[in-house]
């Protein structure tokens, strides 16, 4: 990627230079204090070297003024670093409102990436340049950590939770993706490549060779919704024994017992795996658990499907309609690449 032996990785995202600038400032600051202390120690050590066997040092016990100086200056510098580091971090931690969402599932010992349009990849990830991309991350077994050094981003993949990171890639090319959290035997084999492409190429890739099955993630979810018989209770029809799921994500759900929760993907996941944990008010606690019957990726597909349902709640819409007909509410990814219906989801951290 770079000629010779680089001292820092390629800057391939909008955040990379901001992180590096702070890093360079830290290096300059450290170099200053290292030189200062080493020079003082060396100077004193030579100038005040012992010249007679019985020589003793001057009886100096301290100086309050000096103590205040070398407490105060480091404190001020530390606070500068804190504010700088925190402000760059806030930019890293908060994705823009409109992002292209891609799911990442860590599993011993591979990264599985799932595009909403249906493409699935293992240990390779294709993303468009100059488009904010949000990775929604979870793990199937133990902890992993999604790390792309050239983008200066990293986030742990935690089983049972959704975490996220975002980046806007700025340079096309191939970059490393690593697992940074030790995960067992082949931890160091859990690596792959991120391919940053021009947005048009990315569109071509989405529609072309990389997509054998052709079904979008929401369509896969829809099929699962039928296969797993979720459709029996959750369609809002006359046989309804569970709540309808239209416009669920992002909405506030009132639970049995009066509490209310915001419906996040983590809430959907929990409701599939542990239906009794949060029972919606007004419905009997009869849903069986799907623990062991659905994989993390299938849960993501189901969530995408639920997200794709039209927002008007309660109506007998075509939830179980044939594949490919989610009534135009699932926007195709436009050239700009923003695929999130406004106000749709906010994954739990």
């Amino acid at each position, binding site marked *: 990627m770079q000629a010779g032996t*680089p001292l*820092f*990785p390629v800057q391939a995202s909008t955040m990379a230079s901001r*992180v590096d600038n702070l890093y360079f400032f*830290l290096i300059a*600051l*450290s170099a200053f*204090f*290292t030189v200062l*202390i*080493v020079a*003082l*120690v060396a100077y*004193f*050590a030579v100038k*005040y*070297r*012992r*010249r*007679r*066997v019985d*020589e*003793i*040092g*001057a*009886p100096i016990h*301290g*100086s309050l003024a*000096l*103590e205040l100086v070398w*407490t105060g200056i*480091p404190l001020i510098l*530390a606070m500068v670093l*804190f504010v*700088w*580091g925190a402000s760059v*971090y806030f*930019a*890293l931690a*908060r994705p823009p409102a409109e992002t292209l969402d891609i799911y990442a599932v860590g599993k*011993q010992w591979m990264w599985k990436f799932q595009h909403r349009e249906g493409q699935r990849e293992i240990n390779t990830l294709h993303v468009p340049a100059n488009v904010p991309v949000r990775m929604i991350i979870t793990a199937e077994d*133990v902890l992993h950590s999604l*790390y792309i050094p050239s983008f200066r*981003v*990293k986030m*742990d993949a*935690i*089983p*049972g*939770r959704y975490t996220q990171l975002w980046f806007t890639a700025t340079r096309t090319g191939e970059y*490393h993706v*690593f697992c*940074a959290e*030790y*995960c*067992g035997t082949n*931890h*160091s084999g859990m*690596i792959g490549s991120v391919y940053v492409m021009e947005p048009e190429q990315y569109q071509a890739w989405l529609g072309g060779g990389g997509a054998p099955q052709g079904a979008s993630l929401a369509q896969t979810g829809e099929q699962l919704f039928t296969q797993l018989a979720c459709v029996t209770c959750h369609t809002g029809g006359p046989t309804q024994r569970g709540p309808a799921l239209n416009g669920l994500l992002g909405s506030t759900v009132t639970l049995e017992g009066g509490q209310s929760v915001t419906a996040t993907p983590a809430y959907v996941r929990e409701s599939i795996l542990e239906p009794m944990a949060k029972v919606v008010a007004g419905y009997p606690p009869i849903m069986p658990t799907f623990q062991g019957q659905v994989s993390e990726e299938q849960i993501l597909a189901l969530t995408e499907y639920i997200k794709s349902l039209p927002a008007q709640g309660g109506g007998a819409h075509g939830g179980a309609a044939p594949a490919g007909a989610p009534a135009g509410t699932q926007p195709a990814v436009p050239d700009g690449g923003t695929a999130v219906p406004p106000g749709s989801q906010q994954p739990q*951290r």
Partner: protein
Amino acid sequence: MSPEITPVTTAGAHILARGAVMPARHYLNESGGWKSWLLTTDHKRIGLLYLFSITVFFFLGGLFALAVRLELLTPAGDLMSADMYNRAFTMHGIIMVFFFLIPSIPATLGNFLLPLMLGAKDLAFPRINLLSWYLFIIGGLFAVASLIGGGVDTGWTFYAPYSSMASNSRVLTGAVGVFITGFSSILTGLNFIVTTHRMRAPGMTWMKVPLFVWSHYATSLIFILGTPVVAITILLVAYERVMRVGIFDPSIGGDPVLFQHLFWFYSHPAVYIMVLPGMGVISEVISAFSRKPIFGYSFVAFSSLAIAVIGFLVWGHHMFVAGETPYSALMFSILSYLVAIPSAIKTFNWTATLYKGSISYETPMLYAFGFLGLFLMGGLTGLFVAAIAVDVHVHDTYFVVAHFHYIMVGGTLMAYLGGIHYWWPKITGKLYPEGWAKLSALLVFVGFNLTFFPQFIVGYLGMPRRYHMYPPEFQVWNVLSTAGATILGVGYVFPMVYLAWSWKYGKPAGDNPFNVKGLEWETTSPPPTFNFDRTPVVTDATYSYAPQKEVNVG
């Protein structure tokens, strides 16, 4: 260089000790036979029992480090299998952290010196002191048993749910070892605190307590407040592993991030357990070899306590990318910057102590100089990882590995070696060979930097830690690192050999070969079993080298 007319002499211990003889009776020859050692309640003998045991563990841990460095010489996994490699770095970490670094200075030098420095006959609870050594050994035997049974492969951090559900290595045996050893720390801490409160010699007010004791007091606070937490955490991992009760594993209802909170609540303060005693050693050595009181005594003393207290509030900085909310990340970041300030204060005070001193360059002082440089770099790179945005990038990379080795090895181990050399004449009554010692101090310093400095670079480049294989562009830095580790290894073997040699063949040291202050130097070398023939009465301020009217003990 020097235009001075006065003849320049590098007079050291060898000249001062000329004509010294060993005392007729001392703690080493008072009684003999294995029972007199294994059933001893003498803090000095227990200190030596620890010295011997942790040296064995250090050697073991070092062998694993060597295996890791050899494997990383090439990008491919060619020397050992991935499973073997994972066990090698895990056993390196577990042994070095729990069985060497944590007990290193407190259990050896601390045990030996605390009563001597306070003018006491022994620690407050001599039998509990012996018990703590036995607990350490029992814990150590479990660690060795886990090793013989195939080792542990979870990393020294035992992160769940890998440790509790996934790993098929000897997690349980290793965890029990760490659990038991923890009680040895707790008992040592208890003993030190009570001793410091209750057994100071007449006249030794709190503000006259040597800084070595202050730092051990702060360390002991962490021992007794922090260690129970890690003990409980490890017990919970074992419970989940055996009973399948969901505590940390989400597939049975647990929370893996809870483990990290509990683990780092102890293990971050544990870093200060490792480095605070080292700071105590450095305060003593710098004052002694400048023949000058420490600059800003009370600031150095209270900064130890500040580190111990604030150190309990920063654990979340290990979890910036573990799904922590941005607001908790902010709190943990600012607290991490605050805990750096007391260390900065110490560093400036040590530097200022040299000003107008009478500085000599015996081996302990060389280690102190080395400590200053390496601890400085370890501390400054701590500012990098406290900056959340930078930590997101370098977390779990070799940058962090380099950072904590600069603190734990560059700091603690340099201080430990410096302290062992400084008090060796007191411990054994013999002088160590100065030339060999200086050579190994140099080797350790050069080898250390060559080993760990390249890891900062390869870490920022993005090489994750705990990688058995790695992309080839990282190789050059790994080759440098392995080369450095080889030099470092030689630098460690030398002292093991020449110190053992000097115990038998070294020249007698005399009571105070470096001609320095401190109650430990006012008794014979080696000291009698009960340390002082007459209880000393303290009248001078600590580290008072200036010619005052000589007040003799008794």
